[in-house]
């Protein structure tokens, strides 16, 4: 079945998750959809599978426009979606999972379904005992079950959202064989991934998305550097910046392991000096989050030590790290940072040094007004946190930081911000750096990483696979490392 998406728009509040997307997938092709996290791939696939309805745009199947108001409509139209976490009911048996989504029938025909199941299994080389509880299946097997269930329901377009997360290499090989076989039978397969090598190995065409837009579509194979460039953009000329003399050690990790039981993980040793900026690169969920939480004391490493300004704080409470002037600003500004329902004034009171029992609201408001002015926050001292835009929330968070900081840990300092706010944020951060603060930040923006870091740590599947000197690396090298390809160079 051929599939065409025409000018799909989907906004969530001010966020343009899909901003005029048009893609054509010919029947019988394996079509890759590549892009970093937050590029809008998942949103687009949810629109296509009836989970979200698009604000505007058309979906055309075999030349006929369709309207998909629910996943039910989508599957009836022949579009089957395999979610990143397969939608399998763990307490149920294989056969119950298989029949669960079947439309119409009031009476359960387990026997008939079991016959269908074994026929499909035979055809695609899977083996299932219909009575096994689904919780005993591996993630790969759950995917297989989900695929044949979708086929049974009549899917002729199959969408797979990051299907190789959490499955073994063997199962991945088997999955790829199955997908190729399906494409040969005339099925259209959309393969959503951020892994370059998988798209290269599997797909005939690939569409690359960034920031809610399609930035390119090519026939494969092409050199991987070309894909990296499409995903992350042209390398921008890096401006000279003020050199800051590095001082004494502010954050020292000594043969630290993040989790026990990860055999592939090499112990991490790292020494961050005062005034140094460390960029942390990697696809979302590759371990950066755990790494930052260990550095700020919210988690304890499985092995090794964490020292702040020469003092070993391993295993100490997060508030001890806070006392040592370590501060962590996670990505979720409204989840882990600001407090919904409280005003800017109240935030400054909470973050302030003043610990008098009674609050002097008059003084607090005046101070908040000054801060709002000084940090050019669009809002008033009485605005609540959730009423501010992302950029202004970030401004409030930076304004709430204590004047003295040893280490500042940040996740995605400029995600979702317009260029003006992003530049402003870095102006602030570089100002801190000149004051001697060490900055460790995670980002998905390679430009940002290259422009502002002294050193870059690249994470891949829960470990560091590269430590690069920002001065002599480039977007290609980092991009390939992020995609897990160490052969292209690097440490």
């Amino acid at each position: 079945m051929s599939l065409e998406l025409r000018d799909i728009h989907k906004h969530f509040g001010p966020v343009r998750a899909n901003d005029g997307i048009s893609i054509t997938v010919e029947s019988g092709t394996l079509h890759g959809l590549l892009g970093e996290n937050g590029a809008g791939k998942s949103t687009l696939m949810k629109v296509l599978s009836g989970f979200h309805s698009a604000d505007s745009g058309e979906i055309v199947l075999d030349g006929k426009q369709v309207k998909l108001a629910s996943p039910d409509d989508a599957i009836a139209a022949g579009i089957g979606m395999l979610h990143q976490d397969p939608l399998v009911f763990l307490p149920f048996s294989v056969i119950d999972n298989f029949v669960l989504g079947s439309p119409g029938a009031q009476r359960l025909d387990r026997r008939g379904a079991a016959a269908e199941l074994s026929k499909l299994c035979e055809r695609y080389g899977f083996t299932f005992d219909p009575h096994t509880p689904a919780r005993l299946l591996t993630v790969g097997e759950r995917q297989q079950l989900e695929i044949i269930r979708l086929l049974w329901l009549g899917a002729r377009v199959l969408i797979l959202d990051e299907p190789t997360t959490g499955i073994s290499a063997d199962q991945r090989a088997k999955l790829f064989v199955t997908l190729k076989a399906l494409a040969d039978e005339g099925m259209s397969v959309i393969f959503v991934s951020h892994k370059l090598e998988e798209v290269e190995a599997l797909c005939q065409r690939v569409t690359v998305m960034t920031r809610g837009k399609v930035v390119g579509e090519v026939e494969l194979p092409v050199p991987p550097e070309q894909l990296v460039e499409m995903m992350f953009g042209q390398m921008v000329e890096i401006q000279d910046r003020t050199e800051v003399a590095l001082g004494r050690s502010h954050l020292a990790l000594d043969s630290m392991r993040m989790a026990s039981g990860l055999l592939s993980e090499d112990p991490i040793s790292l020494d961050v000096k005062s005034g140094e900026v460390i960029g942390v690169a990697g696809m979302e969920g590759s371990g950066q989050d755990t790494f930052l939480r260990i550095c700020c004391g919210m988690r304890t490493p499985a092995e090794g030590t964490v020292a702040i300004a020469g003092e070993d704080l391993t295993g100490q409470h997060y508030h001890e790290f806070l006392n040592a002037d370590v501060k962590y600003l996670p990505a979720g500004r409204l989840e882990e940072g600001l407090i919904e329902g409280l005003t800017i004034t109240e935030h400054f009171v909470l973050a302030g040094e003043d610990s008098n029992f009674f609050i002097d609201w008059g003084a607090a408001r005046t101070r908040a007004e000054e801060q709002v002015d000084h940090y050019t926050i669009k809002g008033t001292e009485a605005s609540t946190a959730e009423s501010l835009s992302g950029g202004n929330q970030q401004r409030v968070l930076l304004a709430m930081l204590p004047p003295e900081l040893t280490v500042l840990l940040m996740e995605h300092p400029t995600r979702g911000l317009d260029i003006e706010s992003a530049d402003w944020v870095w102006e602030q951060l570089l100002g801190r750096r000149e004051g001697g603060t060490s900055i460790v930040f995670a980002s998905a923006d390679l430009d940002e990483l290259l422009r502002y870091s002294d050193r870059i740590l690249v994470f891949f599947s829960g470990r560091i696979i590269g430590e690069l000197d920002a001065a002599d690396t480039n977007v290609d090298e980092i991009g390939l490392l992020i995609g897990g390809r160490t052969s292209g160079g690097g440490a």
Partner: protein
Amino acid sequence: MTWTRLSNVLLPATVVFVSVVTLLLLAGTNPWDPLRVIVEGSIGWPPFEEGSARKVGDTFMLWVPIALASAGLIVTFNAGMWNIGIEGQIIMGAIAAAWVAREVSAPRPLLVFLTILAGAVGGMLWGLLVGLLRTAGGVNEIFGGLGLDFVALSLTTYLIIGPWARSGVASTSGTDPFPDEALLPSLANSKLSLLAVGITVLALVGVWILFRGTLYGLRLKAVGRNRPSSFLLGIPTNRYLLGAFMICGALAGIAGTSQATGFHFKLIPAISGGFGFLAILVVLLARFRPIWVVPISFFFAMVAVGSPGLSLRLDLHGSLGGVLQGVLVLSAMLGLGWAAYLARRRLIAGGTSST
């Protein structure tokens, strides 16, 4: 904005009015008579007429525990906790006060002070237990509190038919009356204790100040609205949660004292009278604002005192009072819910049109 504010009041009021009138019509009476009977039975008609001192006293002395428990619940609600254990905290306060009243002999002012203190401590410790189960044991405060409610309830029954049984007869009707020196001082011909009313007003004012002007209150509010953010800001979140449970428990415990030494004058089973649960509804209706607790809990106290008159005067069953209470609360919540839903829809509509 003004439309939002207006609909926030008008919509719930309309829903309440319609459902209460419907209920009364279904019960076979006009809507006016039961209301008059309840008012007459609780504060007299015209209000506070001569000779109504006894029932006015009763009404005030039921207002005290409901309002005190409500004041406490405002604290735990602001900390983001559903303190269902409040019933147990009232009961433990009553038990502790009863123990002092029975076992300690002292001059009256001192003894009264000690019963109040004991009630506060008893309720506070019982509240602390709920908090500890939550913070250290990972037991959701709703389940922990409910469990401890049952424990406290059983403990009263055990004391009443066991160690503190009335001399001669073991009866579930209660212990022997407390000595007079232990009772809350009251006005003549009435149970009305100005001391209890005064403490309740102080508690409500105190809670108002807590969230209006203190850092402690602001931090509690922060913890209740977003624990991860508060933790990251350096607020010891667990300690604040325990603090909220202790404050609430102490106020509930004083409510228990008032029930024991100011209303029943002895320990009876289920001495909390369900006022803890009722207070949860009061606080939700009052939108966590102490000032609104005053009239709402007074209204509930009036219904509690006045509704037995329904069967005597109108040939309606006395339980209609309870049904009325339930319908009232449900319809008010429904109205508030609708108003909030409409406000949100308007907000969303306004938000998308402006971007």
